[in-house]
């Protein structure tokens, strides 16, 4: 292989890791939420909330680390809202998640205009810069940790039981709604972290629509990954690869229009969720209020 080809492959591999990272975080969030029995359609909004809050706090304090923590907190807060709606009020989870997305995406756009008086994008703030790789590595650490928690701790067993048969959890003297609530808060925190990586990891601003459906792609990754942390991580890398491919191919293949390349990750997600006929089984009580 030529040197140019090798360096192109190296670029593609590196970019795949970077583009996968926010999707991995959100997909892990999707896994923990759905394993507890709550479908988190609000991942997209939680990512946007995390991305925006991270920029605001990094700008206020000058410390991107504070920004990342604030992004996690913002995602967790939105997770709490979804969790309360889905447990205490037994709201349909798809409907509640759609509401969360409108509130978070609209709220970020609203606050953007209020705080910076410039619609569309925030000013530049201090970002993680070359330290962004820590969050890339941490994504894999989170996958490992979530795997360990879900399969090797009592709490993980209880959360998984909530997703299969919450009544049995209740009969065992535990509190399924509370367990679900905690799982969704954790889910939001992970999505918020993914959003923070988007805004102050990869770049140094928040711009309207920067999540670009990654939260929804993460949901596809959860299904494609069969509701397991490692599966979802693999699926997220699969989607991240196609997103990276789109950047690498841009300007190199004249006959393929850029719009077609931009559609690649979404089409890949469509094919992925359609191509698993008969092979996947969601948690039995996923999406069903208890």
């Amino acid at each position, binding site marked *: 292989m030529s040197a140019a080809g090798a360096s192109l492959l190296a670029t593609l591999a590196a970019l795949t890791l970077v583009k996968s990272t926010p999707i991995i975080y959100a997909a892990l969030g999707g896994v923990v939420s759905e394993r507890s029995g709550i479908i988190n359609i609000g991942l997209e909004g939680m990512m946007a909330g995390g991305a925006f809050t991270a920029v605001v706090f990094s700008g206020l304090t000058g410390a991107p680390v504070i920004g990342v923590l604030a992004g996690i907190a913002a995602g967790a807060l939105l997770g709490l809202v979804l969790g309360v709606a889905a447990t205490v009020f037994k709201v349909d989870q798809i409907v509640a998640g759609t509401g969360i997305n409108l509130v978070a995406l609209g709220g970020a756009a609203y606050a953007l205009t209020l705080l910076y008086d410039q619609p569309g994008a925030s000013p530049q703030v201090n970002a993680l810069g070359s330290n962004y790789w820590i969050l890339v590595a941490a994504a894999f650490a989170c996958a490992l940790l979530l795997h360990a928690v879900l399969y090797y701790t009592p709490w993980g067993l209880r959360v998984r039981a909530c997703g299969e048969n919450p009544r049995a959890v209740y009969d065992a003297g535990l509190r399924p709604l509370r367990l679900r609530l905690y799982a969704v808060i954790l889910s939001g925190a992970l999505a918020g972290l993914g959003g923070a990586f988007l805004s102050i990891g990869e770049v140094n601003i928040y711009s309207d629509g920067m999540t670009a459906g990654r939260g929804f792609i993460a949901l596809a990754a959860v299904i494609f990954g069969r509701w397991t942390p490692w599966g979802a991580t693999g699926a997220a890398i699969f989607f991240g690869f196609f997103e990276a491919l789109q950047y690498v191919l841009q300007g190199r293949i004249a006959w393929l229009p850029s719009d077609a390349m931009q559609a690649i990750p979404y089409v890949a997600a469509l094919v992925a*969720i359609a191509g698993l006929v008969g092979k996947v089984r969601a948690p039995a009580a996923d999406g069903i209020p208890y």
Partner: protein
Amino acid sequence: MNALRSALAGPAGAILLAFFLAACAMLLAGVSPADGFEALFIGSLGGRQQIAETLVQTTALLFPALGICLAFRAGLFNIGAEGQLLIGGLAAGAAGAHFAAATPLAAFVLLACGFVGGGFWGAIAGWLRAQFNANEVISTLMLNFVAFNVASYLVSGPLKSPAATGAETAPLPTSSWLPLLLPDTRLSIGLLIALLAAFVLRWVLSRTVFGFELRAAGDAPEAARRNGVNMPRMTLLALTLSGAIAGLGGASIVAGVLHRFNTQMSPGYGYTAIAVALVGDLNPLWICVAAFGFGILEAGGLAMQALADVPKDAIHVIEGLIILVLAARRYIATRTQAAPI
């Protein structure tokens, strides 16, 4: 206490809450709510032009909301009205710009193109669900993004008007415009078609065998299946029709308001329409009322931004909160005992 609870749990409570939240959004922006509401209502109901503009927004929201209503009634979460509306508008715009026919029926041919285009886009999700059991929430969402890419590619390439500077189709010949309902405004007879669609949908859902089977498929899928409803076929039909109604909306915007197609034709009507359908309680006639209410917000939101300096995105926050509160209200209204947490 019970009377208060049921009053607050009803739509009246939701509207009050919406006003309260709007006031909070205005205070946050440093604007007195009095000025904000004045701008909101003058901008939406303050005169003939403003009322016409509110009704233009009502029409744009009503079509996709009716489509969403049909799918939700069948138990299918069609979150893809935005993409279906876009493809419907694209089909109408492409047909109008390239196969111009100087007949009085030209506008209705364009609407038919939008119906077919949106239906095709909905059918993709329907087929994926019926054939491969692919979750329609995710497929319809993904198809929104793909729809935008398809439309963007076509209007910046093959369908681009040579005369236009931006990415848009050639303008429609005047003969294929939808007739205006109010002269010298942007309000076309698209509004009447949307209202007609609402009555037809209501009739189909409540008075036909197909409507009964569709509701059965949504309310009790297992019972419907055992009683002979062909579930895959119903899934395909429901999502196709749902997309077709949204596509009809896209065509009515193209043929009635913009008179050409571009990818900025919808500021998220397909997403707002989810709120409209839910606020209208998935009942076609109440959805008409809800669409008018949201039409006021959409039309007034722009005036609020221009006159009172409240960012119009506040409207979306309010819409999202209304969804959350209304979804919770059934529970509050029917709650008899505290849930064990």
